[in-house]
């Protein structure tokens, strides 16, 4: 399948890998500490010392953007991992199990999906107080119903295949059927879900930061940076534009990768 990936997907993957490398290397690459305040240096334009200028408190925007990448990738990646692990297993179980259990769980998930996710997240985080583990858990669980639906549908399309029936007829256990027969044949859907959910989680977590429900200040979070810079945008655009562009580019790259994987799977299936 890798040879069939379109160039746009490779571009998307390269950008996401570059984000990951830059985020991991932030302590060595960032010219300043993310919360270091330069007194008298507020709203500085780009210069040799501050490549992307400074914000309303005189902090280096480049350093905060680099460290902010760590926050968003770590939180969004963890939330995506939770949603795909829980939703993936549940979806595959229901797709194979079918019957009354499948019907009951899917209707429960329909009810869960009818609650607007942002309201649910704001209620929970507002009540318990914002912290990185809670944000990861809430966002991860919010996406579980969507992932479950997709993975259940993918499982149903494979579960009726002759090779799954044949595995049952050979007396293979349900675990062996899931691991050996099912998982490799729904891997495309799983990869796509990881990618989509990471993008959604990045936007969602940044959105929570923008609304003041993200990681507590002075954490270098892109959503918080956009919100703080928004109120002073008439003084300088530099505190707003870099985190906004970084967030948009990350989500676009994830979408390009997802789209490419989806198209490659379609071609392989044909």
């Amino acid at each position, binding site marked *: 399948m890798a040879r069939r990936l379109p160039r746009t997907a490779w571009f998307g993957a390269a950008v996401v890998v570059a984000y990951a490398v830059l985020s991991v290397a932030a302590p060595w690459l960032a010219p300043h500490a993310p919360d270091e305040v330069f007194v008298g240096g507020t709203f500085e334009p780009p210069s040799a010392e501050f490549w992307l200028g400074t914000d309303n408190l005189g902090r280096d925007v480049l350093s905060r953007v680099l460290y902010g990448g760590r926050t968003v990738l770590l939180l969004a990646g963890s939330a995506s991992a939770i949603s795909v692990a829980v939703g993936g297993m549940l979806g595959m179980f229901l797709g194979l199990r*079918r*019957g009354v259990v499948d019907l009951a769980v899917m209707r429960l998930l329909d009810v869960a999906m009818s609650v607007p996710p942002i309201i649910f997240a704001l209620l929970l985080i507002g009540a318990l107080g914002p912290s990185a583990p809670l944000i990861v858990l809430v966002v991860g669980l919010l996406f579980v119903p969507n992932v479950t639906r997709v993975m259940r549908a993918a499982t149903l399309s494979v579960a009726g*295949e*002759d*090779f799954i*029936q*044949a*595995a*049952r*007829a*050979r*007396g*293979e*256990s349900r675990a*062996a059927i899931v691991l*050996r*027969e099912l998982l*490799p*044949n729904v891997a495309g859907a799983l990869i796509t879900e990881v990618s989509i959910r990471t993008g959604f989680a990045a936007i969602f977590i940044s959105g929570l930061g923008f609304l003041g429900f993200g990681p507590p200040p002075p954490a270098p979070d892109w959503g918080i940076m956009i919100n703080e810079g928004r109120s002073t945008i008439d003084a300088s655009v530099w505190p707003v534009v870099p985190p906004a562009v970084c967030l948009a580019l990350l989500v676009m790259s994830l979408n390009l990768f997802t789209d490419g994987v989806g198209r490659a799977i379609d071609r392989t299936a044909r």
Partner: protein
Amino acid sequence: MTATDLVRVERLSADYRDGAGWRPVLRDVSLTIRAGEVLGLAGESGSGKSTLAALLLGETMPERRIRAGHVRFGGIDLFAAPRDTVQALRGRRIGFVPQNGGASLTPTMRIGGLLRSLLRHHRPELSSRDVGVRAERVLAEVGIPDPPAALRRFPHQFSGGQQQRIALALALACEPDLLVLDEPTTGQDALIRQAMLALLRAIRRERHLSILFVTHDLATLAQLCDRAAVMYQGEIVETGPALDVIERPSHPYTRKLMAALPRMDDAALADRVAAQ
């Protein structure tokens, strides 16, 4: 149940889910398969023969229900026995070859992986070396050339006829007592069909196993089976020695099936040959 009966189907009735209700697919079916016997099960599409074959594996699913009756394999009631007991029989003592052998092979697994995982699951006492030897031997038995190389290949790297033989090898790998073949020769050309029947005759001769051979082609029954049963609309309408059923069918449906077989001495064919 006599001492030589390996399988006994007793007054079995089963339904398929049809919208909000249930549609009968098997009606009061009874038959036996003796040890070492080849039973042919014939009938048109939708007559219930594939469902009966699946139920010999004790398979249950939400879309199907057993209304009445039993299937006993070696004395074990497959619908009353614990799930683990029935699961242990499948693949180990009951081998199953579906109609589309190629589609029954997991596309993402090599043939070696398929055979080895099956043998390790049902025969945990075998060493890795023995598993490898058995895998090669069973591929050779079904006529796959160069078994060591074949074990490293994926299913799509074989022809349709070879895939069917590999499906047969998987069914035979654990040395079952019963082989259930669900239309294994359907859709194959005449030469491959004949080769498959010859292979099945040889396997039967060497292994002395029981076979349920499901087909809609009465002509193939005569070449392989000791006894034949004919199904029509979920019921067994005729059963007896295979040659008797074919040469002297007693039920009107069986006579209709026999009449539908193409013959070289058909008047229409003779006319056409004469015209050319």
